[in-house]
């Protein structure tokens, strides 16, 4: 049986990095498309607060990816 190549469109779409990248880019797109400069919270533009709020999200996404990849690798190891 021919082994499926590693890099196929299906594999790319299900890659943890690509899925989380989509989340990161979606978050960025919402901020830059919405761009709420005239809404103020505590006298600071909402857009600034939104960007500040992304800091913990970025850290969480990175940590989630590390755990996700290591689980996949453990699963791959158990199949070897």
């Amino acid at each position, binding site marked *: 049986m021919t082994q499926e190549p590693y890099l196929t469109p299906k594999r790319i779409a299900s890659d943890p990095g690509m899925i989380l990248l989509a989340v990161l880019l979606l978050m960025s797109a919402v901020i*830059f498309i919405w*761009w709420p400069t005239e809404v103020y919270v505590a*006298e600071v533009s909402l857009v*600034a607060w939104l960007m*500040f709020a992304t800091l913990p999200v970025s850290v969480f996404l990175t940590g989630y990816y590390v755990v996700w990849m290591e689980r996949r690798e453990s699963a791959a190891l158990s199949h070897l």
Partner: protein
Amino acid sequence: MQVQESIIIVVYLVLMIIMGLYFARRAQSSEDDYWSAGRRINSFVGGVALFAAIASASSLMGAVGGGVELGLPFFMTYAFAATAILPFTVFLISGQIRRAGVRTMPEYFKVRYGRSVAGVAALIVVVAMTFYMVPQLTASGLIGQYVLGIDYGLAVLLFGAGFTLYAALGGMWAITYTDLIQGIIMLGGLAIVATAIWVHHAGPANLLSDALAVDPELGSVTQHWMTYFGIFLAFLWFGVISPSAVMRNFAAKSAKVARRSAFIASIFYAAIFTCGFFMVLAGAGLGIAGELDNTDMIFLQVLEFYLPPIVAGILMAALISAIMSSADAMLLAISAGVSQDLFKGFIRPQAREKTVVRLGIVVMFIAAGVGMWIAWDPPGLIAIMVGWVGGALLSTFGFPVVLGIWWKRANAPGALAGMLGGGIAFIVLVSGDFFALVAEPIIAAPISLVLTVVVSLLTSPPTAETRAMVDLWHSEERDAESV
């Protein structure tokens, strides 16, 4: 001259050079040791070193100065993009590029696309990294002038010579371990100043209202949307396109270690920008931004105002840490670009390892000299200079790097067209002054993407071996075997 601060800074500089001497023998034993620390760096050391390499003078001094002058939204854009560097890099390239088993970025281009692309890439690395040292050296000159009371140019020379010496002697080994110390000093130092600011103003709410009382426009968007988006794009891609950051991946023990390192670095980075937020508010609250020749100096003013001299001295050492830990990584990238990629790759492939390493050391001193010469009369604000270099690298390297990993059809003519087309578009845009500040990559990077894709599709596909190699870079089973 501030005596206590000066003593701390000089002691710190000497300690870093001693570390370079300590690692010199091990680093100069082989090319792998010199440029990749023998690929034996673990997660924590690699993570803090990666953070220190990315967190440059711009992240600290530049972001705070830019925030005070251009408003909180500018600082937040900086923080948003800079913190997203790590996840963006790790999702897109970290594991795969580590599995490629190369030592430098041009070496990656050589393996993936061939010699011609590698040659162009090496030239771009050398030029871009030399320019990227300029904002770092500018920051060191400003600090030296302020703290040591010496001439700006002399301060640039002193600090430039300092980091060149330890980087040249100890290669990636010295750079990684000095970066580890520098990263810890940076975060610890900024945590101290943020706490002092918090206590002084009895909480962040008071701090914010004190700052807004002095500068009511602090919370407003002051620039065109494109400036914020341009800054965001240039920084988001920094981990992918900066050779000095990407080389950290090559030094990791494995793809797993590279990913964990990125996670640790992301925690450090988010923490440092949280502290930076307090510094922007404190800096604006001082109400002296308009009196300064260079707003980047506000960082030092905040330290002096809120901390006793001995603690301020340690903080200034932290700032110098940020400068050195980034500039040393840039020097290493330049050195590898010339000696490893151009000299060994094109001029003398049979050169002995010792000859290549020695040439690398000489190149470091020359590159540092050129950087110091340009920094003598800096062409702009630190944050803006960093934005330009990031934008130039994104416009040239961004898509050829990523498509090389994620699109097997990408080939050498496509990569070459993408690099040159994106680079030329960037130069035209930056020299013509057509756009908002640092917004050039918004146009130049898509040009690079389109050229890479179209030219690849119009020319022959890569060989079956190349396509199989790209497949292997995505093989998680290989990592599982090496766990």
